[in-house]
């Protein structure tokens, strides 16, 4: 195993390119909260590791679009008054991350995105906010809507030599709401709902976040039920915490609560 503690984005990209050219599947480490323990347990068999810790990609810039680097932690998001004002949805989501002060200091939004786990807070929120990922490799940069990057549980549309350098999120000042259902402080989120304007995005019901358009704010539950019932069986999500039937039963309520919060925030 080789580990590169890249000192710049370029160094990281070079290391990635070399590893990918050799046919390996390099592991990129942002916060490390998911992939480091997986490597230690041997679940993630990494020939090459590229750790971004020293790349300085931890900047958070707030303009009409909020730009945040791969290393920006939940705590940075929570502490930023500008994010709080201009992306209250992101602020609220980050404030509810479990694992204590430590995980909020260590976990990153980009890491959560690249992990592509249905049982995560960030995904539905990023999709709801129409965030874009800045995808870079030694041969160039592209931007991709987050929703397009997410393929299936644990899988993203990233080539072996690509990494996500940061996110661009348009400001979204008003009328958003976020609700997550989890079973105990230790548990992963089970069902999440991020409400924005005319849609609610659900996490934890399918392999990837589900965008449910809301023709009217009164019809939230019905819209969610219709959407879920139309989900092909193979996309329905269940894990140890709860079977699909449970998620199907609670999701309309979680969505309705998120929409209610959004109404209040108008």
């Amino acid at each position, binding site marked *: *195993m*080789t*580990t590169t*503690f890249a000192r710049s984005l370029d160094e990281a990209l070079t290391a990635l390119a070399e590893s990918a050219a050799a046919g390996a599947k390099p592991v990129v*480490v942002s*916060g*490390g*909260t998911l992939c*480091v*323990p997986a*490597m*230690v*347990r041997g679940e993630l068999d990494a020939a090459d*590791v590229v*750790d971004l*810790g*020293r790349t300085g990609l931890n900047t958070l810039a707030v303009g009409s679009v909020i730009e945040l680097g791969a290393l920006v932690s939940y705590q940075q998001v929570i502490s930023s008054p500008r994010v709080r004002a201009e992306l209250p949805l992101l602020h609220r989501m980050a404030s509810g991350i*479990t*694992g*204590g*002060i*430590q*995980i909020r*200091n*260590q976990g990153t939004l980009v890491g959560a995105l690249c992990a592509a786990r249905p049982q995560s807070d960030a995904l539905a929120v990023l999709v709801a906010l129409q965030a874009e990922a800045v995808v870079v490799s030694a041969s160039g940069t592209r931007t991709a809507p987050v929703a397009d990057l997410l393929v299936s549980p644990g899988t993203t549309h990233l080539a072996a030599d690509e990494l996500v350098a940061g996110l661009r999120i348009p400001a979204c000042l008003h009328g958003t709401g976020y609700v997550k259902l989890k079973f105990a*402080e*230790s548990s992963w989120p089970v069902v999440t709902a991020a409400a924005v304007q005319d849609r609610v995005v659900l996490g934890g019901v399918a392999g990837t976040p589900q965008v449910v358009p809301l023709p009217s704010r009164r019809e939230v539950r019905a819209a969610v039920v219709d959407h879920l019932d139309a989900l092909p069986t193979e996309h329905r999500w269940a894990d140890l915490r709860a079977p699909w039937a449970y998620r199907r039963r609670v999701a309309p309520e979680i969505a309705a609560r998120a929409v209610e919060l959004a109404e209040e925030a108008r």
Partner: protein
Amino acid sequence: MRLQVDGAHVQIDPDPEDTLVDVLRDELGSTAVRVGCRNGDCGTCTALVDGQCVKTCLVLAGRAEGARVETLASLGTETNPHPVQEAFLAEYAFQCGFCLPGMILSAVTLLADTPSPSDAEIRNALSGNLCRCTGYVNAVRAVRRAAAAR
């Protein structure tokens, strides 16, 4: 690689797969960070790295090159304990004490930002750490006490 641990400059040569907790314990002999899960759940590997409260089982050792690491051992002494240590001792906020690195350093971090926390804020700040002996009642009391002593 070099790093600074509890004020001392040290030089070590970790394996690429080593995490920071391995290096602190196995190479540097620290007993002030411990291993309870290697999964980011229990918090007993907690240390302050460049002032940030982190779980060191989640950090590849090489990432900490040049960093300033402070463990529980750097806080105070028996005759001059840190107010949070004193409060945990006075309130009998632990039994076996295995969880204390995370408990105490989380409380220290909380009070640095929030000098008069509410109970909910205290419980939230301790929530990155598991304690199996106590039920947290006295730990919450201890953080209240430390806050009042400031």
